[in-house]
Each structure stands twice: as C-alpha cells, then as structure tokens.
C-alpha cells in the first residue's frame, strides 16, 4: 500500500481535493461547481450531493412498447437521452456509476435487438446505482436484455446454456480461476426457467431444473438467487468488484492492498455500495497526490465534459454521438461481453487527433467540414464568467483548474500565456480588446490540445 494512505478520511477539504473529486465523479465541472463543493463540508458534499438519491428521469416515450421498431434510430435516441442525463447530472455521481455498471454487466444492443430492453437495463443500473451489489446481481441475472444477450432465455431444464453462468462468474463477480467448470454447469442449471416476453422477463416453472445442484461447495435445489448468494459468500467476490471500482475511479492498475481494504469495507457493509463509495471518495488514498491526473478520460466522459466545461446546455447530441463513436465508444454497444478495455486503449494516432479536432470544433463553433454547430460558445462571455478574466496570468491558472487535472509545468503555463497574449504584453490583456475573441480561441484550442487534457 502507498504508505500513509488508506480509507481514512482526509484532513483538508480544499480546492485541490474538490477538483479531484469533481473530475472523477462528474462529466466535467465548472468554477461554480468548485465553489459549491467548498461551501460545505466534505461529508455534506459527498453524502448529500454526490451519493444522494435523485428523482428518476422521464424515459423516452417508446420504451414501453416492444413493437416500436427502427432500432438503429431508437438506439440513437436512447443515446441522446443518456447524454442528456449526463449533461444535466447536477452534483450527482449517479450517471458515471451507471456507465460503470453498463461496462460491468455488459449487453450489446445488436444481440438484445430491442433498444427498449437496453433502456430497462439502463434503468435497472440507475435504480440500483449505489445500492446493494448482491441484489443488483440478482436483478441483472433475470434482466430481459441480459437474458437475451447471454442466452439465459434459452437455458432450460435438460438443455442448459452455460453462457450466462460462465460470464456471471468470470466477468461479473469473481474472476477467472475462482471456480471450476463443474461450478459453471451446476450454476447454469440453477439459472434455468427464465424467459423474455417483449420488455419483461418471467419465470417458466416447466423449464426450471429443480434437481439438486452443487455450486462452489454448497448443495441444494438452488435457483438464480441462491447462485448469487453463494457467489457473494466467496471472499474473492468483494475483491473483484473493488478491483473494478479501483480501475475505473482510481487508476488502471489495481493496488491489491488497498483493494483488500476496500473489499473489507464492502463485506462489512453487506455489499451496500453507498457507504463504501462514501468512504472511498473521502479517503486519503483517493486524494493522494499521485492519483491526481492519472486516469485517461473515456470518450463519453471526454465529449460530455467539454460541453459542461463551456456551460453548453443544448448541445448537438447527434454530433456528440458521431464523435464518441469515432473515438471508439458506442453506448449500448460495447465491443464484447468484457466491455471496453479503457485507459491507454482509448488513445491512438487516430483517436488522439480526433479528440483535438473535436475540441477545436466546439471552440470554433464549426464542425469538421465547415458546417456550423447548433451552439457556439462566445468565448469572451465565457471568459468573463471567471472573476480573473481581465488578468491574463490568474485567468490561465483559473481556467486550468477546470480543464486540466494534471499539474501543469511552468513551461506549459508560459506556453499558454504566450498563446493567449499572441504577442501582446501581459498588462495589455483584456477581454474588451478587439482581438480578445480570436486570442481566446487560440488559447482554448491550445489548452484542450495539451496531452494533459486527456487525463483526469
């Protein structure tokens, strides 16, 4: 374990801590968000805002109707709907956790066939987002989208299908090496009997194998809930989830000692996630200097945060979707059952320039190809939302607090200052200068093209 860092709460709730917590839990934040967080205690901010229960968003109208066709267009609408939840997330950690669950309990819309089912799965994640992981695992096991995606609906007495049983253990709860092939077969028998009708699932007793099963050393006439309970009695299970949380919200390479500490807390809380996330987000480990700026932003996070950083509340969702897909992340359609690999895999010689071109386009208000975006940030007005807007050096430092979590070197700061001034003297800087808009454009493009901007 990194010496001195643990789940113990940090002492100093300061700007640095606020920036780190905002950047890891939200899809972008603003100067006002930092002030808001610091206007209260760390406990209040984490427990009453980040982890608070929020009202459920109103779904697209067609999600109840399984006969509503045109799945490509519906999937896009659902994607836009989810972007909208992200953009309007407020101070809630919820949407980032929903994305975490989407990438954990993976389903792909192509196989699931109905985007309606993807909505209900998404709602399941949202309803249980900080809830009990064991109960969520039970619910996902009979979720219509999941039943179709991993063939649970074909799994029946006398003709078991092991697809879900295997992934449940290998990818969703324990990790490879912690079960046998027999455990998978027996678990598959216990998971039989579930079928899908439209957007709902139901239990068909005829198809259920009601014989004795032996799973991970326990024997009984088990059903799907028993399988999940048995799995959650294994010590590896809490560790597996905590490792996944670590990789997503701390750093890509897990620190096993800290994972163990976190897993201990998860078991102590009977797999209730909220108290564990509360501990985590306040911990000296999470806030240690070394963790800051060490995470590569995923495409959805990258694209949505740009909107939120510039206070764009009515973005072009179709354009966002095209960009995110170009950056190799298609919501509701992860590449395979293990989800997106993340981190370094997001960055290559195609996607990195594409990220730069995207930020350029937003700042310029013009799509690649020259057509205008439906929104345009007036940079002078935006700059004036910073109290320091008329002082070049403080302005740069304040903007960097929103855009860049990686500590900027002095040469970087000089480079940004020179870009903003564009040959003028520092005391000449003013947003009321005729060329201010152009200079701000150059500056914001340069800022968001910094490799540091890819890190959170």
């Amino acid at each position, binding site marked *: 374990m990194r010496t001195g860092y643990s789940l113990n709460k940090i002492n100093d709730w300061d700007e640095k801590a606020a920036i780190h917590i905002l950047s890891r839990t939200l899809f972008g934040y603003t100067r006002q968000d930092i002030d808001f967080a610091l206007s209260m205690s760390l406990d209040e901010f984490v427990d009453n805002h980040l982890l608070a229960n929020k009202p459920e968003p109103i779904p697209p109208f067609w999600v109840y109707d399984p006969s509503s066709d045109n799945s490509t267009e519906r999937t896009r609408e659902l994607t836009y709907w989810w972007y909208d939840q992200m953009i309007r997330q407020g101070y809630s950690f919820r949407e980032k956790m929903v994305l975490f669950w989407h990438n954990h309990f993976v389903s792909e819309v192509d196989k699931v066939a109905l985007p309606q089912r993807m909505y209900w799965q998404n709602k399941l994640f949202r309803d249980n987002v900080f809830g009990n992981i064991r109960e969520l695992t039970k619910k996902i096991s009979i979720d219509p989208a999941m039943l179709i995606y991993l063939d649970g609906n074909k799994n029946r007495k006398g003709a078991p299908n092991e697809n879900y049983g295997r992934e449940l253990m290998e990818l969703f709860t324990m990790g490879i090496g912690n079960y046998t092939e027999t455990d998978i077969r027996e678990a598959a028998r216990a998971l039989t009997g579930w079928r899908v009708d439209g957007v709902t699932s139901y239990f068909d007793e005829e198809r259920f194998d009601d014989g004795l099963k032996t799973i991970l050393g326990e024997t009984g006439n088990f059903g799907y809930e028993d399988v999940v309970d048995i799995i959650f009695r294994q010590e590896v299970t809490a560790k597996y989830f905590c490792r996944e949380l670590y990789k997503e919200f701390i750093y890509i390479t897990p620190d096993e000692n800290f994972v163990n500490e976190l897993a201990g807390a998860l078991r102590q809380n009977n797999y209730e996630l909220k108290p564990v996330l509360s501990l985590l987000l306040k911990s000296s480990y999470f806030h240690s200097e070394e963790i800051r700026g*060490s995470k590569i932003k995923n495409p959805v996070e990258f694209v949505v945060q740009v909107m939120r950083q510039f206070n764009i509340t009515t973005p072009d969702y179709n354009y966002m979707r095209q960009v995110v897909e170009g950056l190799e992340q298609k919501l509701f359609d992860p590449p395979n059952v293990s989800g997106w690999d993340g981190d370094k895999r997001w960055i290559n010689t195609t996607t*990195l320039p594409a990220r730069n*071109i995207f930020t350029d386009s937003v700042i310029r208000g013009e799509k690649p190809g*020259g057509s205008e975006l439906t929104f345009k940030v007036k940079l002078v007005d935006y700059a004036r939302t910073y109290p320091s807007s008329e002082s070049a050096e403080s302005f740069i430092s304040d903007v960097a607090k929103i855009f860049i979590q990686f500590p900027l070197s002095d*040469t970087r700061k000089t480079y940004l200052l020179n870009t903003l001034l564009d040959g003028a003297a520092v005391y000449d800087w003013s947003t009321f200068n005729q060329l201010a808009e152009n200079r701000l454009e150059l500056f914001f*493009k340069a800022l968001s093209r910094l490799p540091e901007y890819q890190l959170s």
Partner: protein
Amino acid sequence: MDRRKFIRQLGFLTGAGTVSMTLGNIPVKAFARPFINAKAPDGTVLVLVQLSGGNDGLNTVIPFADANYHNVRPGIRIRENEVLKLSNSVGLHPSLSPFKDLYDEGQLAVVQNVGYPNPDRSHFRSTDIWLSASDSDNYVEDGWVGRFLANAFPDPETYNSNHPMAIQIGASQSMLLQCTCQGQMGISFEDPNQFYQLINGATADNDPPPNTIAGEQLRFIKQIAAQSIQYAQIIKDAADSVQNRVQYPNSSLGRQLAIVAELIGGGLETPVYLTSVGGFDTHSGQLGSHANLLQNLANSVSAFMQDLKLLGAADRVVVMTFSEFGRRVEQNGSGGTDHGTAAPLFVIGQNVAGGILGKNPDLEDLDTNGDLKYEFDFRQVYASLLQDQLGMSADKMGDVLFRNFETLPLISVKHASAGGPISFSLRQNYPNPFNPATTINYQLRIPQFIRLVVFDPTGAEVVTIDKGWKDDGS
C-alpha cells in the same frame, strides 16, 4: 539500387517521364507510366478554394447584356457600366478586378453553369455532393480527392511519404480528403508553427513528465501525439525555409493562401491543398457583403499567384474555386438571394487555358423550380484537373469519380501523362519494339539543360543518347 530508389533517381534525373522500349528481344524495361507528378520540386499542385454558403454566380460572372438579369434583380444587379467586361455580353463583378487582370493575361478560366443533375439546395447535402463527387441521390462518405490519392496517385512508390498527401488549412478535417478505403489521406492545421508547437512544442516537451503514475500516462499520450503529427516537422521546415514575397489581405483566406504559398515554395511535395472561406450565404442585403466577399477572394488569390511567381512555383500550381451551389435567379424580398443551383467557377494558373468555357447562363430556360440549368457537370472539372494537372491516368477515373466524365480544355500545359509536359515531355518511341533503330521524340516548353538516358530494368545506365542545352521546341 532498389526499384523505389531507381524510380526516384529517374524522377530526379529527368524531372519528367520515362518510356518503355524493347530493343530487339531484350526489354529495356523502363516505366510505362510517367511519374513526374508530386516529385518535388517540379510536382504539380492543385489548390482548392471552397466558398462556403453558396456563391451567387449571377453577380459574380454577370450576363450584363441580358435584360432579364436586370429585370429580376432590380435591387442587387450590377450595372453594365460597373461590370468588368470579358466579352460583349458577360463580365466580372467590379470587386474582381485582380481576376480581370489574370483573365487578360490568359491565366484565368471561367467555367460557366457548373452543376449536377437533380440539384440539392441544402448546404450540407450539396456540400457533401461536391466534396464526394457523388450523384445527388447517392450517399458517399468520402471525398474525391481522398479517393484519388488512395487509388490513383501516380506511382505511389515514387511518392515521398515524409510529405503529407494533402493538406487542409483549418481546424477541421474535411471529408474531401478522406477515403473510406484508407482513412484520412490528408492532415489539417491552421498554421504550421502553431501545428508544430501544439504537439511537438519545443518549449513544451523540454520538460519530461514527472516520474509518477500520472506522469507515465502523460508520457504515453505525448508519444502518440508525436507519432500522429509525424509531418509537423517537415511542414514547419518548409514554411520556415521561405518567406512570402507579397502582402496578402489580412483575412482568413489571405492567411491560408499565404501558408500554402510558403509550403509549396518551401519544397513540400504535397499535391493537394484545401482552403476555405465562408459567408457566401447571402440571403439579405447582399450588395455590400457580396462585394466584400469577392474582393477578399480576388485579392487573396491574386496575391497568392503573384507570390508563387516570385517563389518560382507559379507554373506548377492551379487554383480552383468551388461553392456548393449558386443562388436563385431572382432576388428575394430582403435584398438577397436564396439557395439556387448551377453557377460559374474559376480555374486559375499560369498553365491554365484562359478564357470563358460555356455559354452565358440562360435566364429563360430554367428548371421546374425556376433555377438555372447546368451546362457542365462539376465532375467534368474535377476530371480535367485530375488528369491534366495531377496526372491521373484516364483509366482511374471510374475509381475516383464513379464513372467517366468528358474532360474540359482547362489546362494548356498538361501533365506529361495527359499528353503534355510541365517543362518537357517525352514521347513514346517509334517503332517499338525496334531493331535496329527507333525514334524518340521529346518536346521542351522552355529552353533547358537535358539529358536523355536509357536504363535497363535494374536501373543501370545503358546509354546516354543526348545531353546538353536545348532550345524550346520538339
């Protein structure tokens, strides 16, 4: 010597072309396809100027002798006495006087009534049609330049891959330079030095990332950034090696063309550049705004041509303007014009066959929407420039433009592969195969030093046939 080097050297030695011949039964295998193009310093270049928004063709090249013109545009017409006359019936907008000069020098061609069947009046759709060279009912996701570079670039083995195949000056990357087969064929940037600094940044990368896990992530991203801008250095070097010789208008287009001139003059071997200027969507009060737009266009392009001349590159470069559509024949209720169809475009350069191609727009024989009918398909212009300027062989036209189009006589000094040289051409020997004698014809456009050599397929020199200073002629 490997084939690649051999070809390069040949290219360097001849600067023009090669022919295959067979001496008796022995093939003196050279290269049937000439490859002079894109082999700097004498590679040919096409510079595209995109006029976004739909340029009003009728007020650009004005049919001043047509009473209809004056009748349908009472508030925005250009009066006959203001028109810069090119003939007794048609002339240029008064803001285009630099174009009039180029026209008088035989370096500017007006192609009248350029359009396509079933015209689309949406900016985005029609822009896509122009960029992709598709039919109006066919959705294509890549650009004609991208497909040309990917499929039909003359002898890719001779192309120096250290140089980008296409450059767009601007923050975006146009579909024009994309090919679905190979992805992005070009790169885009707004300014060579800024481009260089943004990622390579001498100041920026002098400090290594800190030795932390976050620092390790940053090092990785910087590495990818460096790879992805492999061209930044050579572009900066080219731009730094020469200076613009003339003053450009202080406009976006002026600055873009100034950069292109430096890159061409500085030895960058890139054959296609895309520049763009917006604002042509003149729905209201267009008289003043359109005049400014055209003035900026003409002054910028004319500065560019002048600069190229002083940089010694004018005979390699052709400029083509294009816009997604022209505008309605009649003015609208707010002193402007709405989206229309066919319009004239300009092709400019020292080797351009100057003049007016096509008829005056017919303001009486309109389509069912009351818009101008097209006379030339825009892809005929592309086909002509691809073949005669960029050296695309005719058999590649189907790959690039989806089918064959009749070319137009736009380029006077044609690319060697299209039957004309840049500075000289080498003709196929006759008879071929031969024994014991054959005739090799060559043609010089300007007096120059030549050396005519026969190589065997390994690249070894067989015989030097001729060498020395020659006057122009055959």
